[in-house]
């Protein structure tokens, strides 16, 4: 029996079904990559650069080789000839983009603390670790480039062969004359300069892998803690020159990714190469501090935004200019991440004139790449801070400035000035619901009272309205962005002879609850119990086609593919039932898993019975193929556009700078919801992660390029004790771009919450003349802001 939290209705979708994944996860039974038993396995460990930028003078591996149990030690030079190509970057954003060749092991130079320089194979993981400690590398240190603005000057060029630290300049300038006109006619112009600090994604499970050469056939099975088994398979084949059909990639239980496992990593390519070389299974598990150094970071931008508005506060034009930190090299999607936000610097406001420019710059730090929201949190932060700056300058309430600028409901589908078509939206009721829920006018009164009493406790209320483009993505749109893959998703739905249903999906869940949600979609469509639906995923042998899980795409793209494949199965089943009941297909009704002849209660056939008939094939319509199975590959016609309003309330202690998040309301519109409990979980986790960026988290490097926040004692991920209970609400504006009217919810919370919290902090400090405070808004920063002149 599937447990249902609330009383059931006829529809399966929309119910708060408990996640079928959770009993295993909560009791420790789920198998993560490090739990997979394997005999005769070699343990891999990596020697990493302790410096930010240096020439490698020499590597002495003799002591390591002498350790009993060490099987092999390899340097970049040893393996250089085995790479068919450098590590892949799949997003060449401009034709002249500069991309330094980057191999799994550094050959002559290192360019960030954590860059891999040598690899050890040993019979035991502790021996491997000891061997790593015994390897002596002589470095000739070079001055590192750590600051983005300094990088742009090219005074020191990190990769001499490129001649510059600028990887690319990407501009979206639809109509400069119009933009100039908007600014020159504006009654108000406000400008903001905001820093998006570097973040360490910090998935609960670090990365890890196990690669097993198969006993026959020349195949390799790679188990990896990855979000992208399908893409990884293709990229390994291309990079190592191995036939794709010899590679099977499996993602077992994966403990979170947040974009950091949407990549092709040096360790995956190294392990593959060494398994090929030694013929042995190889295991590697990343350590926590290693994760902070060697797994991609997120964000890392300096943003400048200018808003031009008329005397009513109506925004006429927006100019956004970014410097984006690529880190030392380009990983899989590094250059494209800031551009995913490039279409959204006007937020959900009707703005006629627009320009966006992004300069991608190298620094001697860990490469950046996708991190929950990828470009859209940055865009939302800039516009929502900008709207507050405008409201403040004009003396208008932040809620009112937003009301005056929303894209009105009647303008949808809305063609935005940067060139997107927002398929749907209804922003005003969503804002009003959030204001009502938080008790906005009462809070403003309370704030006024405290201020008039000269209280040392300062209340701040911060709004953030957001829209995102997600459901990545229409393949043709990706082509126009020079992304080198499509954005479709594949699904197969299969009725087994016993009447059970098997769903094969190309999505790769790593905490999202796809098994539960996908079963609900199929059960809902077929009128059967979700327990009768099994969902298979994350194994390229089982699901040969797939584009995996990221960008809040799995439901609106992968879920839609399942919905449509289920429809095809149902159509075929109807023909079989009609044939056997000797009526026309259109004379059949289908309800609760049974076909029945309209107007007759006796002539009926259960779906399971049809499935068995399809299997035996004894009595099928002429020309019909046996078995009941259908595949759909769905390429969405457009992105989806979830939106919402988040309101944060903070209390600041003037004496210490201490900031407490005391209340948080979120009203999100993610379209139709398959499982509202899973939706809430995604929103809550996302809010927490965004609060982390706003108040706590930052990857901090010292002036030599050492990462100072490489453990969870220094890198402050918030826990439940730092967060209030989130009060959630929903509005429902179904997306017209897919048949279920769904949009996706994976990133929304994380997109909306940083500006809500910072707007609240700045609101609290406005009586001290504070106009902005960079993230994370630590107590010391706040205290300094209060006491600045």
């Amino acid at each position, binding site marked *: 029996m599937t447990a249902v939290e609330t009383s059931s209705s006829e529809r399966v979708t929309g119910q708060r079904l408990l996640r079928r994944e959770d009993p295993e996860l909560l009791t420790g039974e789920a198998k993560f990559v490090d739990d997979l038993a394997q005999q005769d396995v070699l343990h891999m460990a990596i020697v990493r650069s302790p410096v930010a930028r240096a020439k490698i003078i020499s590597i002495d591996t003799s002591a390591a080789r002498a350790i009993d149990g060490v099987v092999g030690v390899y340097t970049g030079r040893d393996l250089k000839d085995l790479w068919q190509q450098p590590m892949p970057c799949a997003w060449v954003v401009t034709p002249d983009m500069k991309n330094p060749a980057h191999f799994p092991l550094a050959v002559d130079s290192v360019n960030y603390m954590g860059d891999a320089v040598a690899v050890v194979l040993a019979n035991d993981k502790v021996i491997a*670790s*000891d061997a790593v400690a015994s390897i002596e590398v002589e470095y000739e240190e070079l001055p590192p480039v750590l600051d983005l603005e300094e990088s742009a000057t090219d005074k020191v060029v990190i990769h001499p062969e490129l001649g510059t630290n600028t990887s690319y300049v990407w501009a979206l300038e639809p109509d400069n004359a119009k933009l100039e006109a908007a600014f020159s006619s504006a009654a108000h112009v406000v400008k903001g300069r905001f820093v998006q600090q570097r973040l360490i994604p910090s998935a609960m499970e670090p990365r890890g892998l196990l690669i097993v050469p198969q006993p026959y056939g020349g195949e390799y099975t790679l188990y990896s803690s990855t979000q992208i088994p399908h893409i990884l398979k293709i990229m390994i084949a291309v990079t190592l020159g191995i036939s794709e059909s010899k590679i099977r990639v499996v993602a077992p239980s994966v403990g979170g990714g947040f974009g950091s496992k949407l990549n092709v990593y040096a360790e995956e390519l190294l392990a593959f190469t060494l398994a090929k070389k030694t013929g042995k299974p190889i295991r590697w598990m990343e350590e926590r501090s290693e994760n902070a150094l060697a797994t991609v970071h997120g964000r890392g931008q300096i943003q400048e935004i200018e808003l031009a508005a008329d005397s009513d506060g109506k925004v006429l034009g927006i100019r956004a200019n970014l410097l984006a930190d690529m880190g030392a090299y380009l990983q899989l999607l590094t250059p494209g991440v800031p551009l995913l936000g490039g279409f959204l610097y006007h937020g959900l406001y009707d703005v006629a004139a627009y320009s966006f420019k992004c300069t991608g710059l190298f620094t001697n730090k860990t490469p950046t790449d996708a991190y929950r929201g990828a470009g859209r949190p940055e865009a939302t932060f800039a516009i929502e801070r900008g709207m507050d700056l405008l409201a403040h300058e004009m003396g208008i309430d932040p809620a009112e400035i937003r009301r005056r600028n929303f894209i009105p409901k009647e303008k949808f589908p809305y063609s935005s000035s940067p060139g997107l078509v927002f398929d749907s939206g209804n922003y005003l009721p969503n804002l009003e619901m959030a204001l009502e829920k938080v008790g906005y006018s009462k809070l403003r009164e309370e704030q006024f009272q405290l201020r008039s009493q000269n209280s040392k406790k300062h209340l701040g209320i911060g709004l953030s309205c957001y829209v995102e483009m997600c459901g990545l993505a229409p393949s043709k749109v990706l082509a126009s962005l020079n992304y080198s893959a499509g954005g479709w998703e594949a699904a197969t739905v299969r009725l087994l002879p016993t009447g059970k249903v098997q769903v094969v999906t190309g999505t790769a869940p790593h905490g999202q609850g796809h098994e539960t949600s996908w079963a609900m979609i199929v059960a809902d469509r077929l009128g059967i119990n979700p327990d009768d639906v099994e969902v298979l995923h994350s194994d390229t042998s089982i699901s040969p086609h797939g584009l995996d899980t990221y960008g809040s795409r799995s439901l609106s793209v992968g879920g839609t593919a399942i919905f449509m494949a289920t429809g095809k199965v149902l159509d075929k089943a109807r023909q079989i039932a009609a044939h056997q009941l000797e009526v026309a297909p259109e004379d059949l009704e289908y309800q609760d898993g049974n076909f029945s002849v309209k107007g007759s209660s006796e002539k009926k056939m259960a779906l399971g019975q049809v499935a068995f008939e399809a299997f035996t094939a004894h009595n099928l319509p002429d020309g019909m193929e046996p078995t009941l199975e259908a595949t759909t590959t769905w390429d969405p016609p457009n992105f989806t556009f979830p939106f919402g309003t988040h309101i944060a309330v903070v209390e600041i202690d003037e004496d*210490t700078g201490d900031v407490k998040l005391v209340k948080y309301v979120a009203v999100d519109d993610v379209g139709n919801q398959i499982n509202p409990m899973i939706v809430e979980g995604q929103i809550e986790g996302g809010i927490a992660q965004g609060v982390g960026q706003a108040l706590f988290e930052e990857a901090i490097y010292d002036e030599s390029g050492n990462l100072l926040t490489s453990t969870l004692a220094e890198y*402050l991920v918030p*826990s439940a004790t730092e967060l209030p209970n989130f009060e959630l609400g929903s509005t429902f504006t179904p997306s017209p771009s897919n048949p279920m009217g769904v949009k996706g919810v994976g990133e929304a919370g994380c997109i909306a919450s940083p500006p809500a919290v910072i707007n609240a902090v700045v609101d609290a400090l406005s009586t001290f003349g504070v106009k902005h405070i960079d993230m994370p808004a630590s107590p*010391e920063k706040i*205290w300094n802001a209060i006491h600045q002149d």
Partner: protein
Amino acid sequence: MFPASFEYVKANSIRDAISILSDDDDAKVLAGGHSLLPLMKLRLAAPGTLVDIGGIRELSYIEDKGDHIAIGALTRHHDIEHSGLLKESVPFLSYVASLVGDPSVRHRGTIGGSISHGDGASDLPAAVLALDGDLVVEGPSGERIIKASEFFIGFLETALGQGEILKEIRVPKITGGWSYQKFNRRAQDWAIVGVAAVSVGETKVSLVNMGSVPLRAYATEETLKNGGSIEEASEKASEGLQPPSDLNASAEYRKHLAKVLVNRALTETLAQ
């Protein structure tokens, strides 16, 4: 990382542990492991031998000794937090223990381990300082008592001699007010600055994370004793101190926090 390799010995009695420790100057005592093991995993500590005293049950107790409470060194933070006796007689200590780390740390970490580690950023060493407690240690040449105020010598350095183990912590029953002000960004973290104030006859004040060792705020205490106001006493909070600068706070900010928190601690203590 994995710790460097080490020998592991399980001590069955305190005498047993002392004899191993006296013979091996590369040996370290393992109690709850919550301070030592993280250092070993980062390879910042690499003792040759770990002497595990965690199984010595007779070192875990909280007893009423009339004029004071005696606490066995292996008593876990969780037990101090929830002890009825302490809640009655030294509620200050129960409260401080409730703020150490998170629940899993409090279930493993021990008061003796925390004090012997002598970290200037830890809560319990400063709490015992403010209580002006006595520390009973046993070594190869027998038992001795060290005043808490003389126990913390330098960065992670205490008055414990070779082969000596902290056995018991003795704290007075609190007759007056008390306060513990812990300022941090996340509940699970060490204090950025902490201030403990306890009135047993006179008011004693100690500071967390304001130097390399847990510190008594003597200048503050002196000002109070001489009839100074809370404001005047708080102004002296960081007199002569050189607090650390780190990712959470500069030295200057710490000095400011110390003043604010001493003020709050004294206000709360003297109001009771």
